């Protein structure tokens, strides 16, 4: 049941306990208890909205930043990664295999603000060797959702 609940919530976190119960074939109480336990265990860390912010009219700039790091003798990458993660500008931090170490998503209200964060804060952190910043120009898909729907396609209203 937990697996099914997680699957359904990852698809749509706004499903009510009643809907989840129906779709998992168990009681509402059991669903509520399972969700509470998943939250308590830290398996579900939170719920957020997927935005297509083009229409929002706000200036939101996001960049993906590749960071090379010198691992610490004790604590490896974790210490630097945790430190970077503390900045509110930083949305995601992931340790990545391959040509660099950490991949960040950084958000700001303007290009200059993000650039300033990189040069003044991120790049000066002890252990950060180099950064490579790519600004996000357009989003097509996020968390399984297409940002642009296919054109409406008219189906028959009645058929057998």
């Amino acid at each position, binding site marked *: 049941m937990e697996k099914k609940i997680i699957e359904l919530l990852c698809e749509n976190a706004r499903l009510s306990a009643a809907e989840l119960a*129906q779709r998992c074939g168990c009681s509402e109480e059991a669903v509520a208890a399972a969700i509470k336990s998943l939250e308590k265990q830290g398996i579900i860390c939170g719920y957020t909205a997927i935005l297509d912010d083009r229409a929002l009219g706000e200036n939101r700039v996001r960049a993906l930043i590749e960071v090379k790091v010198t691992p610490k003798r004790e604590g490896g990458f974790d210490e630097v990664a945790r430190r970077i993660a503390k900045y509110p500008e930083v949305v995601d931090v992931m340790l990545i295999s391959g040509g660099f170490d950490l991949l960040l998503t950084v958000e700001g209200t303007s290009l200059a603000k993000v650039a300033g964060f990189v040069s003044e804060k991120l790049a000066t952190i002890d252990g950060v060797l180099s950064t490579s910043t790519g600004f996000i120009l357009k989003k097509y898909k996020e968390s399984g959702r297409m940002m642009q729907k296919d054109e409406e396609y008219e*189906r028959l*209203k009645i058929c057998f």
Partner: protein
Amino acid sequence: MNGSRSVSERFVADHISTLPKSGIRAFFDLVNTMDDVISLGVGEPDFTTPWSIRESGVYSLEHGHTSYTSNLGMPKLRKAICAYVEKHYGVEYDSATECIVTVGVSEAVDLALRAVINPGDEVLYSEPCYVSYPAEIRMAHGVPVPVTTRVENGFALDPAELESKITPRTKGLILNFPCNPTGAEMPLENLEKVAEIAKKHDILVLTDEIYSELSFEGGHRSISSLPGMKERCIFLHGFSKAFAMTGWRVGYACAPAPLTDAMMRIHQYAIMCAPTVAQEAALDALQNGEEAMLKMRDSYRERRDFFVAGLNAAGLKCLVPKGAFYAFPSVAATGLSSEEFARRLLEKERVAVVPGTAFGESGEGFVRCCYATGRDELEEALARIAGFLKSF
């Protein structure tokens, strides 16, 4: 000849001009002129064909696979079909001689009937049923003989009732379970009795398995898998419902070689072969489509539970259908005929359902509601139906 008929009308063959047009054509025309209708009137999935299958179609075109295939269909596809039928239905067919790919299962039904009916042969079918069966039997110069299925039997075919309709002219029987429009399944016990009757009276069984993947309680059995039945069965199936591929038009028939050969003779002259692009997409459906198909099936089951509970709560008595994506509630409580109910519901509440009489006389007193539509729309439709019922 009727003197009032125009010159061109008089050219139409007798057995076609007497083919009954659906009496509820006017109702359907009305639905199609209205814009803000919530339609529970369709007979197809609300999903778009899974991307992997669509991509195979695109790939096929990109690579210029635009010529005919063999009459029976692409050998690769036939092999995959026979493996699929063996795995899921437990019947072994030889892909070289016992399988033919058709333009939807509709063509397969037409081929099968034309291949076996001599003029005047009677063909039995359970009713309420898919609209095409009686018409196709007539087009093949046969005589359609309905066997009524009843709500008190869960709309399963009653073997005794079937046997009472058998005459020396009975040639065949069409089965379609899970059933469009009732969503009924055949309990194994009934299916076994029907098989015994078919053997006893030497009847051929055409089994239309188009909804068989969408059987929610599990354990669907095809009559062709019962002992001694393969030789007297034509197994008809396709990709439309399970893989959400209605517009691709690809289906198939599996049957012993003499029957397949007879169907192939009609098919080769009338159709040549099913569209190549659709055959390649269908192959992908068998190779890669199972996960997506099971997900769609689960989604229909969830919506069934929700929608049928809603109908019953609103006061339309409805059995829990065991398969397909239709609910077939009774409208008897309103005192209206099926057609009157559907017309008033459409005009007053802008919800379209299909009058049960579209599926034969025995559909009177029922309407077919397709729940393969968005959950929000189903909720809204239920609210409107509940409102409508309050006026009775």
